[in-house]
């Protein structure tokens, strides 16, 4: 590691910011049980401060890129380094900032847990991998942190590992993320083959290898290297697959709702604000690699995911599950936005979404936390995440209610919220994009509008059910114990609430173009059509308000619409489009079955020289069965018994009788003689 020479210390600071949480991970894990909170908080805070500093240095300034050689394979030098540009510093601030808040929140929220030191350690690991991910300058390094993010989320989801569902969910999350990793890896392989480097700056920078490579005659050419153009698309799809898994896009979204088995603070940090954003971040970081075909697919996947998740969220009853689906839905928006080329809008939405979704979760967590405490105190047992059992908490937990309302408004995209800016910008772009095209694509923006309205419905259904009306389980007389969460948690809610307002991002609450953040990424590829800039928000918000009102009527005033339960629409939605069942049937069962089959194959066919697969056994069973019984175990045994048979054949001649010997011997000699001379 000699020869490390950072000319400027910005990279070093970034490195320090990333490493600090790792330090916390190692330190806390090595230290005694039960502690670590302060240490974790201080390291992440320091990281956050460093990130802020970096942000101030790098934002809209010259990007910073420093690297040093990592290892050499053959003649290809691999570098490890740090690439700081607008995107990375924004992500750094976002990740570390939200982490700080979640850390603070968790001190209270997780206080009673026995293995709390593990929790802090895991959080440290997660922050490290996430920060590492955003500052890495090479695809290989990104991949490294990418998987590490998955791993730490595995640890955090499975934090309560003695809970079966938690360990199950952790496994599911990891395995599904692995599918995405395969895509990522495939992408890396293609890129490496084509360009012999995995360096982001060299690949995607200005005048990078990607932009100089060309497509001619169905060949994708870069320098002397060429491969069929299909591989360009495959590379795009592969990277997109990786992003899909991390960002929970259809069809790899099923892990996210399950991941809600983890502590709520974790859900808030990972599954709302940061980790799921990694997918979008990846797409943004390697944006040039996607060709139009992939972008189109991205659009549709994103749109469909958004719509599907919204429909599912309509009927869920678990408070965190609703939020999870809303996350998926919003991620769909972002992906769709990237697909249509609304790059800056997507990042913008990513940022705003991080805050309001975090707030949603933390507020929900606050509710859960308090109900949990209430239950413990009153030895009352019920599912404290089920919104059907809640109600009337508006007065008891005003701060949580406030936070929740604000965040919901942002989610729906009501005016004056950050969501209004970012979400509407995406929809405007969608309309603009669709306007330049023909065919079915024109329904796309309308689908998004519909989704947006559905969002209004489901999120306010949650708000109304939890905070309005009467609780079905919590007795009025004991409500005295139930009030807002401890101060630390409340402060966090308040801070986040502030970040849900337009003021943080733009001074003009109606124009996303005025947002500093949007400007930071502005790459205009879509022709602006001004009519959409005022039409779309108008229609959207009008519809949203109408829907909120309807929701209010249904859930607070208890009128109508209860009868939809039991309809096919309800069932599909409630069972989450049956994805788990389908996957279970299609993949898990079949993999299990195949693995059993291969094992049996291994035991019988490979090991047993027996041509009897299970299916064949049924059809030509008795022949195979005979075979099976005769030659039971192994090529080795078979040859063994074969040689024994040969031996036994010859043994028959060894009768012990002299004259038999002589007869046999002479017969052999004579027959040899006759064969050679007389015939």
């Amino acid at each position: 590691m000699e020869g490390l020479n950072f000319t400027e210390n910005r990279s070093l600071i970034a490195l320090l910011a990333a490493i600090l949480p790792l330090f916390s991970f190692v330190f806390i894990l090595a230290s005694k049980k039960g502690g670590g909170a302060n240490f974790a908080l201080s390291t992440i805070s320091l990281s956050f401060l460093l990130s802020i500093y970096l942000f101030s240095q790098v934002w809209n300034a010259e990007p910073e890129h420093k690297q040093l050689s990592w290892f050499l394979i053959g003649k290809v030098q691999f570098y490890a380094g740090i690439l700081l540009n607008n995107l990375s510093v924004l992500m750094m601030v976002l990740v570390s900032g939200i982490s700080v808040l979640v850390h603070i929140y968790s001190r209270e929220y997780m206080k009673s847990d026995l293995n709390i030191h593990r929790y802090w350690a895991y959080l440290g690991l997660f922050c490290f991998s996430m920060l590492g991910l955003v500052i890495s300058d090479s695809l290989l390094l990104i991949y490294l942190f990418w998987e590490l993010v998955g791993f730490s989320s595995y640890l955090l989801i499975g934090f309560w590992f003695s809970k079966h569902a938690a360990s199950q969910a952790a496994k599911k999350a990891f395995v599904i993320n692995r599918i995405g990793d395969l895509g990522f890896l495939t992408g890396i392989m293609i890129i490496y083959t084509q360009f012999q480097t995995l360096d982001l700056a060299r690949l995607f920078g200005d005048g990078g290898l990607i932009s100089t490579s060309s497509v001619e005659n169905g060949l994708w050419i870069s320098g002397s290297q060429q491969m069929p153009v299909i591989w360009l698309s495959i590379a795009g799809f592969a990277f997109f697959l990786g992003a899909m898994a991390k960002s929970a896009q259809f069809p790899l979204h099923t892990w996210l709702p399950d991941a809600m088995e983890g502590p709520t603070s974790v859900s808030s940090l990972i599954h709302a604000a940061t980790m799921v954003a990694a997918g979008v971040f990846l797409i943004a970081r390697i944006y040039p690699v996607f060709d139009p075909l992939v972008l189109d697919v991205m659009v549709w996947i994103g749109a469909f995911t958004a719509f599907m998740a919204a429909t599912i969220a309509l009927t869920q009853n678990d408070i965190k599950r609703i939020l999870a689906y809303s996350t998926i839905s919003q991620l769909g928006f972002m992906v769709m936005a990237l697909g249509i080329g609304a790059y800056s809008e997507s990042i913008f939405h990513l940022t705003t979404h991080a805050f309001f979704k975090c707030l949603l979760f933390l507020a929900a967590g606050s509710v859960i936390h308090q109900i949990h405490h209430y239950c413990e105190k009153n030895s009352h047992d019920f599912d404290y995440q089920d919104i059907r059992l809640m109600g009337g908490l508006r007065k008891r937990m005003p701060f949580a209610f406030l936070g929740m309302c604000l965040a919901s408004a942002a989610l729906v995209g009501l005016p004056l919220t950050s969501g209004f800016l970012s979400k509407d910008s995406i929809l405007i772009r969608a309309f603009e994009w669709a306007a330049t095209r023909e065919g079915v694509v024109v329904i796309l923006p309308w689908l998004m509008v519909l989704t947006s309205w559905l969002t209004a419905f489901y999120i306010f259904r949650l708000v109304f059910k939890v905070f309005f009306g009467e609780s079905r389980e919590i007795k009025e007389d004991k409500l005295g114990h139930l009030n807002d969460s401890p101060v630390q948690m409340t402060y966090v809610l308040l801070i986040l609430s502030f970040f849900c307002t337009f003021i943080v991002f733009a001074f003009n609450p109606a124009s996303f173009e005025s947002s500093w953040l949007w400007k930071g990424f502005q790459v205009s590829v879509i022709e602006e059509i001004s009519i959409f800039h005022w039409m779309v928000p108008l229609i959207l918000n009008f519809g949203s308000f109408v829907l909120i009102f309807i929701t209010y009527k249904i859930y607070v005033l208890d009128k109508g619409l209860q009868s939809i339960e039991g309809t096919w629409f309800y069932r599909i939605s409630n069972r989450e489009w049956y994805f788990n069942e389908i996957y279970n049937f299609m993949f898990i069962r079949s993999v299990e079955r195949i693995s059993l089959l291969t094992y049996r194959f291994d035991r019988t066919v490979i090991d047993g020289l027996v041509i009897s697969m299970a299916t064949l056994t049924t059809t030509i069973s008795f022949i195979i069965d005979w075979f099976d019984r005769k030659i039971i175990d192994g090529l080795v045994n078979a040859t063994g018994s074969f040689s024994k048979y040969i031996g036994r054949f010859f043994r028959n001649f060894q009768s012990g009788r002299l004259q038999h010997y002589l007869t046999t011997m002479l017969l052999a000699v004579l027959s040899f003689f006759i064969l050679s001379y007389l015939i």
Partner: protein
Amino acid sequence: MGQEQIIFYFFAASVLISALCVVVMKNLVRSIFLFFVTLFSLAALYLFALADFIALAQVVIYAGGVLVLMLFAFMLSNRELLNSLKPTASGFKINHFAGILISLLFLFILFTVIIKIDFNQLDWMQERVPINASDNTTHQIGIHTMTTYLLPFEILSVFLMMALIGAAHLARRGNKA
């Protein structure tokens, strides 16, 4: 056919027939005596090949040695040996098929071989000096024994000594038994 030939073929027939009888005879003692006949007839045939010393040796060693040895073996050992031997020998039987087949095959092959060869045309037969009826073969054998065949002759003595010691060892009773 001259007198010589008649005598030759008589002895030849005697060799073969007596040998066959020896083999198929049920009574062992009788068959041993017929064996005697075979050996004598063979000695006669040797004479026709102008090997008088060999004929003599045949009579002395076989008739005088081997046969007597066999008979002594019976006498010295248990009488039961003789008794038990009686029923064992039996004539041609179908379970001897393999033996018969092999013998006949051999006979066939040997006959084919012998008939195919014109011995008088063999190079060496024409080159070498044949033995005349007047030659003293005993004399020749004496010289051979002391010159060309000195080594085998001497080795033979060791051989016989070994056989003697060994056979004596096997046949004698142990000290302790």
